[in-house]
């Protein structure tokens, strides 16, 4: 008997279960999930689930096919004892032979004054999205979004689609700072064109109440107050590793793993998805962590497969990270590690400027690519990132490419 326990019932957890089964694991697979729902896809939470009145979690569940798994849903892992090979679920234990940690992230809450006020939202789980949708579609509210990262920008676009007035705030000078200045400038313009009031380059000091426990506005660092009926706090995510605090596993902004997604000091523990910090060939010396859909899907599959074999036979995870964001009618895509780039430049674009491809470079090599409505061109760039192609070679190749945007 050999039991694989997967903690986390999101995309990474589901793919891990499928990966273990597809690799021929015939004994038990147990998946523990804190949410009561079967695994569902999260990208629609900031998009379709906000804008489509009738959508529920059932519209976004992953197909499971014939997958044979024991689901322990609505149960929370509270601690791990690696020596005993036991996951604590509150007052009872669950033994494993191999464990896959896929606990993902939670929304980073507002830590300043006013966090307790009614009308202050975050978005991470399906119930959060449905609650925010209800708030946005009751009366004609003014939405203030604190944080102009991926989620903040996507919700801004969805709210404008609903006809809601939106103010989007960030201490950074441009939205989506992780993707660099170029994307930031274009994205800022995109939101302005759609009527979003952007307040960038200064922090929020407080969420302000109406005296009766409901949010009424936000206070900016320069003293300006912006009225708000609804506030979305979109300040990024925190890895769910608290339950591992006393486990002895190596934790550093995530669960630190080797290239095979195996915990650095315990070969019976593997991990997948947002929670993993691992060394990537494109990442230099420091481990990276990637909070994106494709990463969770691919790492889940691999961790599931790797969990069925001894450490020495496991395959490293080296896929080029890729992610996307849909805002209005624009699909923004990125591959590689934009944060590692020291400069960014547009390599090709259409005459009207609506579709373009850019690269992020470092030491003369391509480390990332960015696309605005450029899905069909991304393949070329993805290969270039994968092989860290010299920038000059890519530019020459694009110049000769009759399919490039002109």
């Amino acid at each position, binding site marked *: 008997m050999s039991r694989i326990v997967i903690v986390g019932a999101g995309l990474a957890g589901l793919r891990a279960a499928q990966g273990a089964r597809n690799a021929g694991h015939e004994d038990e697979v147990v998946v523990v999930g804190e949410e009561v729902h079967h695994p569902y896809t999260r990208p629609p939470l900031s998009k379709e689930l906000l804008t489509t009145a009738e959508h529920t979690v059932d519209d976004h569940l992953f*197909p499971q096919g014939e997958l044979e798994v024991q689901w322990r849903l609505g149960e929370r892992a509270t601690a791990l004892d690696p020596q005993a090979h036991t996951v604590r679920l509150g007052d009872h234990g669950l033994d494993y032979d191999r464990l896959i940690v896929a606990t993902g992230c939670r929304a980073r809450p507002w830590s300043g004054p006013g966090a307790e006020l009614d009308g202050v939202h975050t978005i991470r789980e399906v119930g959060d999205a449905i609650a925010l949708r209800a708030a946005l579609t009751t009366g004609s509210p003014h939405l203030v979004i604190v944080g102009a990262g991926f989620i903040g920008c996507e919700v801004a676009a969805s709210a404008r689609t609903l006809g809601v007035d939106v103010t989007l705030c960030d201490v950074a000078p441009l939205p989506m700072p992780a993707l660099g200045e170029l994307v930031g400038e274009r994205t800022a313009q995109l939101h302005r064109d759609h009527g979003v009031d952007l307040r960038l380059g200064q922090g929020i000091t407080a969420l302000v109440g109406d005296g009766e426990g409901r949010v009424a506005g936000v206070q900016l660092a320069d003293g300006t107050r912006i009225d708000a009926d609804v506030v979305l706090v979109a300040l990024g995510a925190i890895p769910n590793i608290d339950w591992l605090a006393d486990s002895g596993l190596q934790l550093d902004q995530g669960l630190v793993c080797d290239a095979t997604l195996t915990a650095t000091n315990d070969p019976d523990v593997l991990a997948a998805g947002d929670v993993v910090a691992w060394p990537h060939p494109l990442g230099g010396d420091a481990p990276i962590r990637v909070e994106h859909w*494709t990463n969770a*899907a691919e790492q889940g*599959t691999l961790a599931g497969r790797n969990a069925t074999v001894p450490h020495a036979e496991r395959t490293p995870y080296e896929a080029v990270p*890729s992610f*996307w964001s849909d805002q209005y009618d624009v*699909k923004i895509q990125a591959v590689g590690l934009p944060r590692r780039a020291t400069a960014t430049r547009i390599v090709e674009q259409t005459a009207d400027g609506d579709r373009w491809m850019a690269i992020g470079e470092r030491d003369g090599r391509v480390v990332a690519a960015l696309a605005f409505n450029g*899905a*069909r061109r991304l*393949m070329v760039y993805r290969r270039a990132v994968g092989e860290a192609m010299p920038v000059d070679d890519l530019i020459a190749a694009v110049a000769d490419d009759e399919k490039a945007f002109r």
Partner: protein
Amino acid sequence: MIKVIVDMNLCQSHGECVYAAPDVFELGDDDQLRWQEEVDDSRREALEEAVNVCPMMAIRLEG
């Protein structure tokens, strides 16, 4: 042979399948996905990867 079925009402041309199985899927100049409907069994692993990485869950295999 494996039959590849794509629900074009779901497809949003992300292109992840193109990367997983470039010999089967491609994005045309109009950004619409084109694909081979009958694929040899030897490509099963790549096709399953394409199914798994489709963010829209638009791809299905039969056979």
